[in-house]
């Protein structure tokens, strides 16, 4: 009785937070789910019913397997549990099969695999020092970080309503970051290699890992002024890292190499036939580029500078994933986006090499890589903003400057996820959860840093407050106006552009703070 009391009492707030959010996830089971639900059911069917040689060739359903092999093995493992719930979902030909038991199984599998995320959050909290802590539990950085990660709005919406398995993937990433912060480099590298073979989108942040491990792990010592000491290079470490990556890749791609299917696998993993932007523009640089192009073309037509017949029909956010040309500004090719991304990543990577600040510097570089790839990547999904938001939470409880950038990034990033849930019953849920997360994050970080200057200047406050009227306009006013038929893309357009402004601003501010930070030798804390 006493042990239960201690567990339940004030001491174990972490368990209470975890239980609370798990119960909330259970309540979200009957909500709307997107086509991703069918995608994963299809993959369960493919991996269960077909031999490995068919996995990347199967195309009965339009949702073909386009994640790396480890994820396919994960679905295979899940399918063995699934057969006890409902055998029918494992039939490849049962397209769009969504019985009650299937729904229950899939939802519970997401909730269950989130256990890895919970463990990763627990490890991350150990890396946060609580020197700034007040005596109040709710003011401790560990508590705030746990809430920001466990109750993250974006993760809840994307995983438990829209339906995906990002929870345990981000768990792997946060765990590898935590291991690197704890100076357990080999484990961190191993975890990241495994993560890459689960979902290749994490390639975005691979440069940060590569350069950091090379600079701060393979070179074992620095000169007093912080630059690299070339003779401290450790071949052993380099070889062992290489071996880890090689072994993991061999385990993953080996079977397909043996079957001579590598080109097919890669063509599934990297489909470049899709357009520059997703049907709903992710709020990145290209959204602003497209918007500018559209505005210029409208002005051009009005002032008779352009011939209206030459403009391709249909708005670019018409909901189809297609290739299109820009009218006024030059068109963008995949190669151009790659070059832009590389140019954007370069300064942060250089910083990581020339001004290493230990594991914190690595974290900042990782976030910048993720954000830069989001800004300039080809066919970026708005969900990819989570790649930057979640690691940034770790920084936000450290410095006031970082907290301010984090809040702008998170609030606009989360708001940009709203178009994912467009059904009426989910409207109150997304608004309530967004308010919950935003109000909590802003007020708790403000309380944590109340002794320093205010987190937002008037411009930023105004911008963030503007999200409210924008939402009211897009969801409550616009559908009842006459423009709904002629200009149906306007809500998505406005959301995309407004959020792109905020995210670009946050990216820029973070870059400036990283570039202007003094190098490690001169700071007293490392």
């Amino acid at each position: 009785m006493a042990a239960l009391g201690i567990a339940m009492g004030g001491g174990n707030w972490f368990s209470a937070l975890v239980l609370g959010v798990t119960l909330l996830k259970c309540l979200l089971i009957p909500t709307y789910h997107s086509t991703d639900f069918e995608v994963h059911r299809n993959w369960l069917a493919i991996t269960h019913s077909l031999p490995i040689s068919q996995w990347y060739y199967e195309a009965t359903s339009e949702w073909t397997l386009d994640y790396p092999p480890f994820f396919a093995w994960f679905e295979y493992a899940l399918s063995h549990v699934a057969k006890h719930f409902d055998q029918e979902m494992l039939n490849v030909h049962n397209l769009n099969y969504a019985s009650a038991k299937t729904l229950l199984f899939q939802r519970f599998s997401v909730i269950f695999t989130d256990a890895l995320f919970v463990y990763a959050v627990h490890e991350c909290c150990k890396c946060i020092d609580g020197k700034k802590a007040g005596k109040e539990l709710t003011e401790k950085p560990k508590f705030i970080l746990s809430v920001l990660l466990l109750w993250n709005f974006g993760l809840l919406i994307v995983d438990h309503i829209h339906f995906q398995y990002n929870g345990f993937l981000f768990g792997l990433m946060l765990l590898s970051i935590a291991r690197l912060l704890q100076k357990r480099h080999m484990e961190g590298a191993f975890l990241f290699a495994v993560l890459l073979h689960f979902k290749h989108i994490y390639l975005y942040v691979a440069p940060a890992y590569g350069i950091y491990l090379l600079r701060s792990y393979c070179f074992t010592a620095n000169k007093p002024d912080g630059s690299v000491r070339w003779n401290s290079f450790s071949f052993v470490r380099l070889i062992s890292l290489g071996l880890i990556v090689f072994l993991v890749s061999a385990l993953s791609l080996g079977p397909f190499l043996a079957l001579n299917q590598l080109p097919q696998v890669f063509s599934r993993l990297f489909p470049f036939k899709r357009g520059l932007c997703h049907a709903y523009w992710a709020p990145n640089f290209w959204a602003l580029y497209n918007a500018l192009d559209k505005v210029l073309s409208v002005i051009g037509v009005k002032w008779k500078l352009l011939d209206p017949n030459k403009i391709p029909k249909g708005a670019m956010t018409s909901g189809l994933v297609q290739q299109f040309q820009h009218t006024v500004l030059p068109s963008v090719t995949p190669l151009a986006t790659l070059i832009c991304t590389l140019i954007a990543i370069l300064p942060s990577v250089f910083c990581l090499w020339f001004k290493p600040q230990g594991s914190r510097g690595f974290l900042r570089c990782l976030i910048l890589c993720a954000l830069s790839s989001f800004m300039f990547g080809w066919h970026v999904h708005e969900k990819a903003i989570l790649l930057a938001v979640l690691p940034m939470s770790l920084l936000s409880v450290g410095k006031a400057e970082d907290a301010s950038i984090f809040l702008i990034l998170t609030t606009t990033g989360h708001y940009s996820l709203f178009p994912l849930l467009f059904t009426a019953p989910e409207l109150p849920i997304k608004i309530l959860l967004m308010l919950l997360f935003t109000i909590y994050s802003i007020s708790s970080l403000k309380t944590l840093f109340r002794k320093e200057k205010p987190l937002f200047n008037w411009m930023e406050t105004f911008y963030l407050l503007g999200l409210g009227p924008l939402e009211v306009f897009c969801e409550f006013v616009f559908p009842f106006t006459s423009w709904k038929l002629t200009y149906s893309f306007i809500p998505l357009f406005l959301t995309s552009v407004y959020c792109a402004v905020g995210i670009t601003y946050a990216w820029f501010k973070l870059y400036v703070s990283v570039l202007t930070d003094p190098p490690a030798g001169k700071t007293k804390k490392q």
Partner: protein
Amino acid sequence: MEKWYLMTTVVLIGLTVRWTVSLNSYSGAGKPPMFGDYEAQRHWQEITFNLPIKQWYFNSSDNDLLYWGLDYPPLTAYHSLLCAYVAKFINPDWIALHTSRGYESQAHKLFMRTTVLIADLLVYIPAVVLYCCCLKEMSTKKKIANALCILLYPGLILIDYGHFQYNSVSLGFALWGVLGVSYDWDLLGSLAFCLAINYKQMELYHSLPFFCFLLGKCFKKGLKGKGFVLLIKLACTVVASFILCWLPFFTEREQTLQVLRRLFPVDRGLFEDKVANVWCSFSVFLKIKDILPHHMQIMISFCFTFLSLLPACIKLILQPSPKAFKFTLVTCALSFFLFSFQVHEKSILLVSFMLPLLLKDELLMPSVVTMVAFFIACATSFSIFEKTSEEELQLKSFSISVRKYLPYFTFLPRIIQHLFLISIIMMVLLTLMTVTLDPPQKLPDLFSVLVCFVSCLNFLFFLVYFNIIIMWDSKRRRSQKKIS
């Protein structure tokens, strides 16, 4: 209060839980011909919108009282009328006379659920927030924890947002009444409580404590001077609010009588269905319903009810204090529920385990989740497993008195701990059994009756427990001049 943002967070969590529960099924979904409470509420909108006031409570060709006839006081009818106006604006098919019977659609469900949420948001939730903020002798953290537990109370959420009812309105008004009366805003408090009674007659369960508390206050102020003035003012407030609500029905005697007949159906038997009531549990051993004649049943239930709540009420008149008032509210409601006539299981919104009802509505998942969440919230906020000394169970005075006669009566806290554990284990077991197993052929109602029986025992225990707290609370409080 400085932690306003935490309170906002708690309210938002409460609202989120409510709305996610409302995504599930409602009572009587897809079950013609009678459907359930959801259809009843829709039907009332139809009746109140299409028929003139004089016909609302009467049987006629347009208004078939056997098909969910109106059996709540006028304020519910006015609320339905208001909702009907909104429904007419959105889609008149929802409330078309006769043709809209059994109307079910996603849009309509969304509309009905929204009306519940708005009513909750306007009446109940502000009352809870204000109540918790005004609690004295508590740290801010405790106040917020209180608010979280109250807002997460599964009974209210599941009945209002799952099964479908508007209990939050009447409970909200009653809570405003409690607030007003506890902080000496007597007139406003009694007005609020009258509104509560006029919304659902179930609130009459709480009327006796209100009456006794206010009477006690008048006595304390002295019946020759200020007390008498207060009494007159209160009487006028109550009469005025009743007249205001019942105005259209006071024009003819027959109208008033018919409404009363619909509100208090005394033609029915001692109990219906399986309720965690003493009579229902007692009938396991002895079939009272069949043995005693009708009027004897009424007399016995009347006597038992009043005998069980008399001590606490008398004490309240003699020594009115907000704390005693709150406890008396609980005991009176429990007494009424346990002993009175023709009780419905939904009347117990204090401590309730309405499992069979919820299973019928296919609300198993939300019920489990909300109950676990509530339990964890309470356990974490109030460390109930740690605070089991006599002081904290508020039984100190009682055990001191008992120890005068039985010097070895020191094991009270441990008894209570064990009882608590036993009752939790039994409830979990019963829940598991009800969900997974099928009852034996000869006793098809076995599990429902067992649930009711166990719940009844729990309620009886609490009745005794709270009565003890009230009765033995006297001397210590009076010596400390503070009023809590």
